[in-house]
Structures are given as structure tokens and as C-alpha cells.
């Protein structure tokens, strides 16, 4: 805007000069006060033009600077979002790796052992067959001996526990594979690799996914109670909302130290869905509480936290037209409450 005005002015001032020249030729000898005024005015205009020109250059430089700053800021914000996304991805991978480890452990072991058991059984069967062949080819002289031999190998085969054991291991393995595929389905649901963007979502599903992903941080020490109400579907970006829940759950887990209780609730209000995550951990001191959503604010040691988790949570919730509240008491615990609009209208599209 500013640069346009300046540009027009300077062009206009340049146009003054030819007119001035024409006039001066006509009335050379009469340097009338009018002419003097005109000259003075044109000089003043030229000066102004020059002034504007210089000013404009300065402005241009400043604008470029501002634009550059803006771009840098945007880039660094995008970088930050990306880094946080990567951090939550890392967390997710660690969680899934841990969850998958146990079933993978026994399925892998079982597959090998079943192979060995089958080999053993094949050997027992082969021995039995040899005995049967011996019996089939026996003559009167060897028949009794063959019969005894066959009876013995038959008994051995009957007593071989390999097949029963293999069957048992196989049942376990199928079980373990089912567990692993359920995890992968959950993972896909969490990351929404197949469909990024807005979707109609049951927030309880998001909570369950986030709890599964965080389970390696919870298991053994945090008792989780779920009080999940029946919810209408909410129009949101599930990958982002999952990130919000995972972040709040992880924070709660970290606030609880050795052991603790976490309550995850959801319910429907007039035109919003409310999700709350309550822990009985350390709590947040009053002087810290107002700063928790500030970017780069962290109470963790250097290198342990970015101080971005909650600021991004805040940003995501705001972006969804929702609100996030926190209630905390030192020594008693903290509750985060996220409220998201249901947006029935949008939902019908």
C-alpha cells in the first residue's frame, strides 16, 4: 500500500518538468513572482520526490526484512510442529515396539520349536514305517520279531508328545499374531496414515488408541480407570486429536513417578464433547500454572523436554474451535479438560 502511493507521487513529480520548460521559453525576460513560485514549487516537489524515493527504498528494505522475518518464523513454527510430530511418532514407535515385543517373542520362538518338534515327529514316523515295511516283508521266520518291533515303535509314536505340544504352541502363536495385527490396526488408526484430514470420529476411540500407544509408560505402575460415556461423533482431525490425548496421558504418567492412578473420562455436553484426564501426581505449582501453554516453557532439564508439547496441544484444540482447561493442586494431582464442539451441521456433509 505505502509503496504504491510513494510510486505514484514520484512519477507525478517527474511530469512537472516538461511543463516548466515550456513556460520558461515563452516568458524568458519576465521572471514573474508566479514563475518563481512555480520554480520553487517544482523544486520542492522534486525534493519531495527525492525524499519519497529514498523513503520508499528504505520502506522496501524494511518490508523485505519483515517478510523475511515472517517467512523465517513460519518456517521455524513448521519446523517445531514437525519436530513435535516426530517426537510423538518416536514415542508411538517405542510404545508399539514394546507392545509387540512379547507376542513377537513367543511367536518367533514357537515357530522354530514347532519346526524342531515336527522333525522329531517325522523321525518317529519314519522309524514306524521302517518297522511296518519289515513286517510286510517278513516271512514266517522273522514275523514274530517284526511284530515285536512294530509294537514297540507304535508305542513310541503313541507316546510322542511332540504333536500335542506343537499344537499348543501353534494355538498360542495364532493368538499372538492376532494380538500383533490388532496392534498394527490400532497404530494405523492412531497415525491415520491412510487419511489425513478432517473426519467424523468417536473420541473414545482416540482415547483408547492413545492409551494403547502410551501403555508401555503406564503398565506396572499406573492404574488407569476409564469412565467413557457414549459420544456422538465429532468432526475433527483425528491424527491431531490423538496427539493431544497422547501428550496429556504421557504428561500425567510422567507426573506420577513410581505409582499412581489416572482417570480418563468422556461425556457429552449441550453442543460439545468433554474429555478429561486426571492424575494423582505431583501437581503444578501456582506460579507455573499460567505458563504451561507457553511455547518453550518447560520444567524439565535441558534435553529432556522441548517445552512445546502443551503449547501444541493448546494450538490444536484452538484450531478445532475447542477449549482446554487445567486444574491442579500440588501434591494432589492435575486434571486437564478438553472440550470440542460437536458441529452437527458439518457432520451431516
Amino acid at each position, binding site marked *: 500500500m505505502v509503496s504504491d502511493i510513494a510510486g505514484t507521487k514520484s512519477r507525478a513529480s517527474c511530469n512537472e518538468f516538461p511543463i516548466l520548460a515550456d513556460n520558461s521559453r515563452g516568458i524568458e525576460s519576465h521572471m514573474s513572482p508566479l514563475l518563481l513560485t512555480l520554480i520553487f514549487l517544482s523544486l520542492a516537489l522534486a525534493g519531495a520526490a527525492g525524499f519519497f524515493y529514498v523513503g520508499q527504498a528504505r520502506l522496501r528494505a524494511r518490508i523485505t526484512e519483515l517478510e523475511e522475518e515472517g517467512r523465517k518464523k513460519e518456517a521455524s513454527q513448521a519446523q517445531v510442529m514437525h519436530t513435535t510430530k516426530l517426537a510423538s511418532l518416536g514415542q508411538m514407535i517405542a510404545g508399539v515396539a514394546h507392545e509387540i515385543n512379547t507376542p513377537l517373542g*513367543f511367536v518367533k520362538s514357537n515357530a522354530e*520349536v514347532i519346526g524342531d518338534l515336527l522333525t522329531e515327529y517325522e523321525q518317529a514316523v519314519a522309524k514306524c514305517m521302517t518297522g511296518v515295511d519289515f513286517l510286510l516283508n517278513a516271512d514266517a521266520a522273522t514275523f514274530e520279531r517284526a511284530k515285536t518291533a512294530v509294537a514297540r515303535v507304535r508305542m513310541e509314536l503313541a507316546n510322542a508328545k511332540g504333536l500335542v505340544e506343537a499344537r499348543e504352541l501353534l494355538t498360542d502363536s495364532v493368538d499372538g499374531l492376532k494380538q500383533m495385527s490388532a496392534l498394527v490396526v490400532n497404530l494405523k488408526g492412531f497415525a491415520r496414515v491412510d487419511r489425513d484430514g478432517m473426519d467424523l470420529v468417536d473420541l473414545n476411540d482416540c482415547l483408547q488408541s492413545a492409551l494403547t500407544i502410551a501403555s508401555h509408560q503406564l503398565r506396572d505402575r499406573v492404574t488407569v480407570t476409564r469412565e467413557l460415556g457414549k459420544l456422538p461423533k465429532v468432526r475433527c482431525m483425528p491424527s491431531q486429536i490423538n496427539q493431544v490425548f497422547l501428550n496429556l496421558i504421557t504428561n500425567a504418567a510422567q507426573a506420577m513417578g513410581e505409582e499412581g492412578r489416572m482417570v480418563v473420562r468422556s461425556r457429552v455436553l449441550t453442543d460439545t464433547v468433554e474429555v478429561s484426564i486426571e492424575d494423582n501426581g505431583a501437581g503444578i505449582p501456582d506460579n507455573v500454572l499460567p505458563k504451561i501453554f507457553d511455547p518453550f516453557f518447560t520444567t524439565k532439564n535441558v534435553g529432556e523436554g522441548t517445552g512445546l508439547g502443551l503449547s501444541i496441544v493448546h494450538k490444536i484444540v484452538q484450531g478445532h474451535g475447542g477449549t482446554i482447561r487445567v486444574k491442579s493442586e500440588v501434591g494432589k494431582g492435575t486434571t486437564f479438560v478438553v472440550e470440542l464442539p460437536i458441529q452437527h451441521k458439518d457432520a451431516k456433509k
Partner: protein
Amino acid sequence: MEPTAARPLRILCIDDESRILRALKALLREHEVHICSDPRQAPQMAKDFDIDVIVCDQRMPQMQGIDTLREIKNAHPRALRILLTGYADLKAVLGSVNEGEVFRYVNKPWENAEIKALVTEAGRIAREAPLISSEPISEREAEEARGTVGVLVLEEDAVTQNRLREILAPHYQVRFANTIDRALMLLEQHETGVLISETETHKQGDLTQLLKALKLHHPYISTVVITERANAQLAMELINEGQVYRMLLKPVRMGSARLSVDSAITRYWKLKRNPRAVKRFALGNAPSFVEHSVPVSEQLMARIRALPTRIVELMKFNG
């Protein structure tokens, strides 16, 4: 009664996940395998069945693996303890070495051949190598031990050196080395029962290979690692390939340092009386650790090998 070696090894597997237990039982079927899904019952079971080798999961809801192993160690010290873990958790690793005195760590998902070899090796050691007594030694003996058995500190950081000098010098024969060369010189000259060492220094670089090499040839020297860069993976490696006795985090605390050095010296003293027991603390022959160790230069290795063995019977036993 059959000869000891012919009897199958008695293994106790502990995990809250019954499918893991069934898998281990099937995998180790050449041995006599007992399974236990409630770690609180494990110490009693270990005693009742006179178990040789424990294979225990780390994460269980009723009781953590390290606590289980510590209790088993007290109830039935003869068994060698293997910790199964899915997830490198530094606290757990430090606890398992300092309190549970684990024999080895195995990562989930495990390699069948590896765990089978490990269990067999552990069982052999549990049967062959006698225990050193858990009775405390008399005050007179302890004094003699402190006067005779040297403590060597390999550390270039002056602050830590001073700290350790403050803590240890009034009670033990402490010697300090800034370099590997100096450390070996001191080992050549003085009977040493405890080596306190960093895992890495600026000038000397990585020290873990040295610790492993030393353990390979002189297993009766207890290694107490002090480290700044706590890292579960490294800790596990030091247990599995270096049979580290204790691991302490910097800054070193007076209580834990004294406790560690005291118990290490006592162990050395008892080993002197009962050298065959050293097998329990040696690297053993299972393939996984002998192969990995030790990319230390030939020259250094030769020097380590040539260090005087002051526990005479040990030579006979190993030879």
C-alpha cells in the same frame, strides 16, 4: 544317585505372560523346566526344586524382575540368574547388576540358539562352581583384606579422582591412574582386587573393551564402573560381556562407593580362599560373549594376559 552332570538342569522360568512361559518350556525342553507366573512365589520355588538357572522377565505387575531376582539371590543363591527384558530401562539395568547380581541379560525377542546356549552354560557353572559364602568375614580379616588388596581407579577427571580419594583413601589401598598404560603398570606391580573405572575418557577414548579384556583373563578382579553417560544399552553390554560387579552414576556418592568397594574387596578375599567359585563371575564359554569380545590391540591383550595372577589355584582351574 546319578552323577551330577548327567541329571538334567533344573530351570525356573518366571513371567506373568503364560504364553511366554509355554514357549520357554518348549524351547528348553531338554532340561527340567519349572514355570511360575507369580514372581512372589518364585523364591520359594527356586529353593524347593533346587533350581540351577533362573530365567526371569523384568516387567511383571506383581513384582519387578530385579526385585524377584534379589529375593531369589537371598533365598537360593546357588542359582544363576538371567533377566529377560523387552525394553532397555536404565534403572532396571542398574538395579539388576547392583542388587540382583544378574548373570546375563537377554533381550526380547530372544534368539533361541542363544538363550539355549546361555542356559546350558549357566547351568554348568551353577553346578560346577561352588558358592562363596554369604557370611560376613571377621573384622580382623576385613582389616587384613583392606590392607592387602588394592583398589585401582582409572579415571582422568580430577574432580572425580579427588572425590574418590576423599572417600576411599582413609580406608583402602587406593591407587590412581590417568591412562591405560599406567593402570596396567599398577596392576603388574600391586595385588588389586577392585578396578574402579570410567567407561570412556577424553584422552583414552573407550575403556569398555579394556574392561572386558581384563575380565576375560582376570575374572577375580571386580569391576566397579562409574559413569556420567548413563545408558541402558551400554550397561547391559558391560554386564553381558564384562561381568561388571557394580555400576555407579556420577557424581559418586560416599555411601554407595564405600559399600561397593567393601563388598568387592570382601568378594576378592573370599575368592582367594575358594578360587573355584570365580567361575561364577567369569565370562564363560557361551558363544555370544567370547565372539564379541575384544577388539583390543594384540599388544595390549598380551600385556593383559601376562598380568600376574595372584590367586594361584585359579591357574589350575582355568588351565
